[in-house]
């Protein structure tokens, strides 16, 4: 198999002439990071609320939270993405839908992708929050209530501070997942890392260089996130409490 | 039958066993005792090579355990071992627990293995439990099954690693009774245990260990009547006054 390796391809000006192919890659990299981080923040906030609701004694609230988690967990991410991108604007009141379609297409793609990743991940975060709270000894909640805390105070001062520390390790893998899952958003034309990789193949016919570069970029993200989360784990470790299990 | 010569073992800089030497003759019942962390469990696990050791030599029935050329699986199939936590295989019925190694290691036919299993279960008084799973038996029953499982291999000697320490007090005796019977039949045994009543009844010799060393290696009477070392006297005083 004769393949002409040509790593200089990255330095060549693009077909459209306004950038180098390396510049395209870098744009995609930034897009992946921006998309993943913004989605992650929303996912943490929504997931924490839903996860807490799953553990409260109120049947209606916990049922609602369970339904939320089941819906987002049992539909493929790609299908969810297409629903947000193609279907949601159609289901909105006409004026809103039209307004949305008037906006910058890149913003539309980014908005749909962010919403999709955020809510998809929030269901997973919620599961971790729930299992973190449930893994605490049941006596903890009773101890909180016995001291005269209300239920919300018991969560605020007793259960959540400990649960949050317990779920840092499992959240690491969800955090890694959001970067990997963001690659799915290339399917709606959002020019993140994987999409730029494919675009490069189309323009340069140097598939191996392009895919290797993209793969290395994902590995880099992975390594950085892992070190960051390990550092965080050290910071929040409770002396004398050997993690969760 | 078992001879140990200057056996030493360390984990990194921590010395678990230092220069342990002793002899066990055929038909002897040796009780190994000592405070926790004294290395007695490690010592007994060295005998069938479950714990590797760095220096010294252990010969079991003419075979050197530490020799890299030794077929350890074959050696172990001739030495029975009973564990503190029974270690029955939870996914197999009681009778299967007794048969699996007979068939897969010794190459006995399933029928032969089954016959052997039922006669041993009868001997430990558990014939009715043959079709149950380990999780459905009490701790004392599980440990008796574990002894039967080891005996099914027709071992030339038996090693017991604290066989009664994980049991509720009311179940200790049913296990000790089986062990006593076995000793009286002339089985060569090495038992790590704190049951001094058992030691007084059936032991021929008592080994006392402390900090990885064999401190006393005496006949039973000499040990109980006149333990020489202060450590052993302290240990006996603590354990007998309970």
């Amino acid at each position, binding site marked *: *198999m004769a393949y002409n390796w040509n790593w200089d391809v990255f330095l060549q000006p693009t077909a459209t002439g306004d950038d180098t192919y390396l510049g395209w890659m870098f744009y995609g990299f930034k897009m992946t990071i921006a998309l993943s981080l913004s989605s992650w923040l929303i996912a943490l906030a929504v997931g924490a609320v839903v996860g807490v609701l799953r553990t409260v004694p109120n049947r209606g609230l916990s049922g609602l939270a369970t339904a939320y988690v*089941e819906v987002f*967990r*049992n*539909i*493929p*991410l*790609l*299908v*969810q993405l*297409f*629903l947000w991108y*193609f*279907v949601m604007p*159609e*289901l909105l009141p*006409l004026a809103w839908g039209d307004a949305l379609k008037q906006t910058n297409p890149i913003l539309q793609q980014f908005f749909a992708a962010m919403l999709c990743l955020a809510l998809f991940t929030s269901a997973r975060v919620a599961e971790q929050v729930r299992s973190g709270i449930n893994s605490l000894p049941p006596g903890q909640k009773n101890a909180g209530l016995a001291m005269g805390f209300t239920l919300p105070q018991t969560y605020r001062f007793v259960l959540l501070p400990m649960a949050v520390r317990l779920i840092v390790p499992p959240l690491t893998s969800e955090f*890694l997942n959001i*970067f*990997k*899952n*963001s*690659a*799915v958003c*290339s*399917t709606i034309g959002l020019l993140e890392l*994987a999409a730029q*990789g494919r675009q490069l193949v189309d323009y340069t016919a140097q*598939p*191996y260089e392009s*895919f290797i570069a*993209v*793969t290395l970029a*994902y*590995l880099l993200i*992975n390594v950085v996130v892992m070190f960051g989360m390990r550092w965080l784990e050290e910071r929040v470790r409770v002396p004398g409490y050997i993690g969760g299990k | 039958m078992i001879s140990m010569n200057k056996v030493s073992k360390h984990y990194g800089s921590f010395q678990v066993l230092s220069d342990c030497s002793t002899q066990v003759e055929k038909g002897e019942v040796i009780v190994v005792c000592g405070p926790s962390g004294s290395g007695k469990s490690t010592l007994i696990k060295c005998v*069938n090579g*479950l714990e590797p050791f760095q220096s010294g030599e252990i010969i079991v029935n003419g075979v050197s355990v530490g020799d890299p050329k030794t077929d*350890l*699986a*074959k050696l*172990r*199939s*001739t*030495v*029975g*071992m009973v*564990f503190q*936590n029974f*270690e029955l*295989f*939870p*996914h197999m019925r009681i009778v299967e627990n007794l048969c*699996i*190694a007979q068939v*897969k*290691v*010794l190459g006995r036919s399933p029928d032969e293995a089954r016959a052997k299993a039922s006669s041993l279960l009868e001997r430990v008084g558990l014939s009715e439990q043959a079709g149950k799973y380990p999780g459905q038996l009490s701790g004392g029953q599980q440990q008796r099954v574990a002894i039967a499982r*080891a005996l099914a*291999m027709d071992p030339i000697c038996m090693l017991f690693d604290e066989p009664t320490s994980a049991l509720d007090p009311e179940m200790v005796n049913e296990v000790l009774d089986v062990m006593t019977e076995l000793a009286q039949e002339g089985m060569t045994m090495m038992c790590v245990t704190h049951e001094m009543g058992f030691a007084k009844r059936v032991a021929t010799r008592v080994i006392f260990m402390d900090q990885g060393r064999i401190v006393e290696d005496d006949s039973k009477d000499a040990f109980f009547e006149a333990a020489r070392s202060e450590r052993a006297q302290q240990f006996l005083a603590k354990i007998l006054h309970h």
Partner: protein
Amino acid sequence: MHEFDWSSIPGAWPFLWDGMVISLQITITAILVGIVWGTLLALMRLSSIKPLAWFAAAYVNLFRAVPLVMVLLWFFLIVPTLLESLLGLPRGSDVRLASAITGFALFEAAYYSEIIRAGIQSVSKGQMAAASALGMTYGQSMRLVVLPQAFRNMIPLLLTQGIILFQDTSLVYVSALADFFGAAYKVGDRDGRLVELLLFAGAVYFVICFSASRIVRHYQNKMKVA
């Protein structure tokens, strides 16, 4: 508001069904190959032979660090060329299904191997010692004592991973292979009824995955009692 018109679904039924068959084909093959290869990887990773352990660790970490979309794109790039030269197929023959199955199987094996490794480590060390004390070799102890228990503990996790895998098969969309989702998208695009077809596809995936996860949970609860 959008006016719904579901009429294009009944006529497209056979096409959608063929798509579902492809989705299931990929799922089931990838589960089977993934579990077998994943078990081998887990055993290598736990082995005392260092090069094997390193290889398995590198394999697993690499596949787990890269997005599935990227892995699939790699396989659509490499496998056709490989198959063409290995089997002497004419250039440009349709090996997308084979590529997809290979990609999924090798990718999922990395995830399965982590589940299986945890399962093996969840079996207490005493079990291995007891098996060795009875004279079993390492292979016998693993096969007869440790793995059966490990797999029993792992079944719910393996099945849950299977459900995730089934959802992930929709990503073969990147190769324009008509799996269930690809078929639904094509029908919607053709008839100008994308909204209905996408909602329909979402509902079908939800019903299948939700029921499957209920069954797994039921099994899990039954196991806890036993």
